[in-house]
């Protein structure tokens, strides 16, 4: 199964399970969780189901396109089910069926792997899902986000799409997987991995990055101090600081001590934005509460 079929089929499946199919966020993020459709929607009482692909940028993981297993930017398919349904594991296992993975002939395991994001003030409890020894999904019950105890609890599923495609296609390099229509992943992405690696490790202007970190940090604060607070602009500015932090980190410009401080600065704004978002939804009367038709059972 090629990469795009995999994406299309998974999206179709989750749409049938009552998810809104969202689009990737158009601000650089390190993980699909940072998309406001996850980070903000899990707050408060409103039920929600959403799925989307999110390109996730991790400049420090880049390898100049030389390592067959590592990318500076990879694709995640993110699913949020709020509240976490009773049959969430069954729903997930059925989604594998869509990819042609029949649990009857594989070894599928849920092994403890808890998740924590210090920059988002978020943590959850869950598993990594292993398919015949290969990690294919991160499965998390969000317990806290933006420093706020969550209730109801959301289930988050994050599929690592390139890894799954590699595994399904039994390819020895990410760049050899078929994206679609006979075009290889490498043909689409290899050059930008190379260039982004050179930029991230060698070229990025540290002083400029630091300056922009400061700028976006104060911009986030300004948005939060605005009356009424501008939640999405504040989140976007905070995501910028998070990405700038990742770039500085890849560039080797952050000492261990400084690291803790910078993470705390990103978190402060993330937490404040989360609070503001919750207050905003409350002021709106939690418009989605009780209004969304969430199927309780399986997809048709």
């Amino acid at each position, binding site marked *: 199964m090629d990469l795009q079929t995999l994406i299309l089929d998974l999206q179709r499946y989750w749409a049938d399970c009552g998810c809104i199919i969202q689009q990737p966020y158009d601000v650089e993020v390190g993980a699909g969780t940072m998309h406001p459709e996850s980070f903000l929607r899990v707050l408060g009482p409103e039920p929600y189901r959403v799925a989307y692909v999110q390109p996730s940028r991790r400049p420090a993981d880049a390898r100049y396109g030389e390592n*067959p297993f*590592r990318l500076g930017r990879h694709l995640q398919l993110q699913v949020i089910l709020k509240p976490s349904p*009773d049959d969430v594991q069954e729903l997930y296992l059925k989604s594998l069926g869509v990819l042609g993975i029949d649990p009857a002939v594989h070894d599928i395991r849920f092994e*403890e792997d*808890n998740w924590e994001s210090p920059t988002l003030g978020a943590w959850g409890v869950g598993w990594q899902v292993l*398919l015949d020894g*290969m990690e294919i999904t991160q499965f998390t019950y969000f317990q806290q986000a933006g420093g706020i105890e969550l209730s109801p609890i959301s289930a988050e599923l994050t599929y690592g799409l390139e890894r799954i495609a590699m595994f399904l296609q039994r390819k*020895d390099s990410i760049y050899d997987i078929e994206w679609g229509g006979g075009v290889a992943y490498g043909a689409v992405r290899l050059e930008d991995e190379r260039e982004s690696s050179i930029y991230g490790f060698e070229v990025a202007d540290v002083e400029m990055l630091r300056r922009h970190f400061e700028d976006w940090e104060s911009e986030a604060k300004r948005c939060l101090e605005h009356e009424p607070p501008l939640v999405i602009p504040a989140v976007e500015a905070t995501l910028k600081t998070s990405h700038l932090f990742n770039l500085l980190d890849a560039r080797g410009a952050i000492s261990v001590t400084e690291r803790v401080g910078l993470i705390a600065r990103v978190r402060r704004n993330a937490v404040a934005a989360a609070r503001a978002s919750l207050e905003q939804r409350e002021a709106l009367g939690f418009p989605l509460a009780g209004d969304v038709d969430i199927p309780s059972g399986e997809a048709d």
Partner: protein
Amino acid sequence: MATFLLEIRTEEIPAAALPGARRQLEDLFSVQLAEAGFADLEITPLSTSRRLSVVVKNLPDRQADRSEVMTGPPSRVAVDSDGNPTPAGEGFARKVGLPFDQIGRVETEKGEYLTATVVHKGRDTSEILAEIVSTVVAALRFPKMMRWGDGTPIFVRPVHGVVALLGSEVIRCALFGVEASRSTVGHRVHSPETFELESADGYAETMIERGVVVDPAERKQRLEELAEALASEAGARVHPDPELMAEHVELVEWPGLIAGSFEERFLELPPEVVVTTLRYHQKCLILENGDNGLQDAFIGVIDRKDDPEGLIRQGNEWVIGARLADAGFFFAEDRKRTLAELVPGLDRLEFHRVLGSLADKAARVGKLAAVFANALDANVAPEQLHTAAGLAKADLLTNMVGEFPELQGIMGGHYLRLEGADDGLWTAVRDHYAPVGFEGAVPESVTGKFLGVADRLDTVAGLFAVGERPSGSKDPFGLRRAAQGAVKIVAEAGWEVDLNEMIQAAADAVADFSKDGEAAVADAVTAFVADRVRRWLTDVVKVSGDTADAVMSADWSNLPAAVARAEALERVRTSESFRILALAFKRVRNITDGQPDRGVDQELFEMAEERELFAATEEFAEHLQGLLPKRQVEEAFLAMEPIAEILERFFVEVLVMCEDERVRDNRMALLKQLGQQFMELADLSKLQVEGGEK
């Protein structure tokens, strides 16, 4: 008699939480059931990755009736002069639920009182169990709890089903909003359909038919047998790994195995890399051939009986191949540069916010290692140690250690070996993190030992200097283990070096970072290391605590000498002479502590016992001078024995605290001199012996 079964069906529970959960289930049920008056029960906690169960055998259908004697008000208050009950008397009758004419009387010291025997009817066991189940489950604790769904329930993982049966009857109760029933499910693949358990009896057997082995001990046995069979098929043996086995036991409902292989070329990677990939990242069992070498094969544990289409083996082989190729990529990348080329980069790696970079640390370690080498007249140049200290940390900058942090030291060793470094150097880098605490071998080469001790003392002194001292169970920097490692190396290397001086040197090097000054740091580190030395004596040398105290109170700064004295004292102390010596020496210490050193003036002796003791002391001192340089420690201790009787006589006949000040001082001086000679070996006053106060 009936059997009780509780099964809580959940989503996958973390492996690490399960052994503790079973212990708690057993403990909590036995306490609760005992409180309810049930005895002679057989309580068996069971679990798989997806269920927690407990089976209790030998339960009666109902509690036994229990009678209780209750005492009421005094008769004079409860009964009027006509023999009729007063309101107080009626009240008591009401309370115990009997007509007044069935209320008895009892004579006590304070007069006659009303009394009644109340029979509490035993309740149905199932009713009691319903309550106990709620109590027990609410009391279960897990390392990490979670909420799910609407956010109210809290448990280790979401709960999907509860079976509660007494014999064949369902016990009416509910957990986390799930009503207890007799319905459960089998293995996710082998028997996913819901079915009903007829009875609590035969639970384990029924579940095996449904593809679930609920008894962890049985899963363990099956896994071990399967693994051995697979290994011998492959002409290899399984590397013993009880820890990994124990984890796998918790990770499955049905223990199954697959065997697979990987490309032989990966065996060219350092074996630790292959093992880390297989063992730590893929949780595979390692296969060894006859010479302890690795095989190009592995055994994986699966949660099912079979691999019907071979896809599971294929998948695992693909993943392991990919992981090994990834490691191979890192290895090749790292080999493009020498380790020495990485050393300058250490100034970008922080060791500690206040204590500076790893380059700073390596420089301190090199210097401290040189102090050790110098004190031991070792033929290692300071520059050599300086270079080795830098190289030892350089692998922290390699791709491989970035990916596999547990291979620190080991990778540096391999890279240096491949660069052609001499054995003393590359093994030093490889070994310098070992041993961890008292566990594991000490570094092979002398350079490795110097680095190992210096690195740890610097870590302990440095973190003490900046106030990061361990307290209680908190030891985030592993300083106890670090100090233990240093103690083990010094003891096993047999280094007769003054540890106090070495600690002082380590404290000096970090004194600038301390607010309290170097003396305070040195004192604190010395006390901390002393605790580890005592532990070495009691836990590894295996002498009793008071032997260790006696020896250490004399001196422990020369560790090998202290170990030899502790071993000798432990052997000789069982004699009657040593019991007497220990008691007498307490008196000696009590009398002479705080007294100034004075010479003994033989002219002032008035009694034969004084002269006798003086002669014995002189003779003992001579023995010591002859024996100690020859390391004849036990003989030296035995030379104390004759003094026991002499000292005992001395204390009987001689009044130390006599009127004449000069005679008194002289007697104290004599005892002090004896004490000082004894203290060359041990402070016998620390020995706990019969006849002395603790």
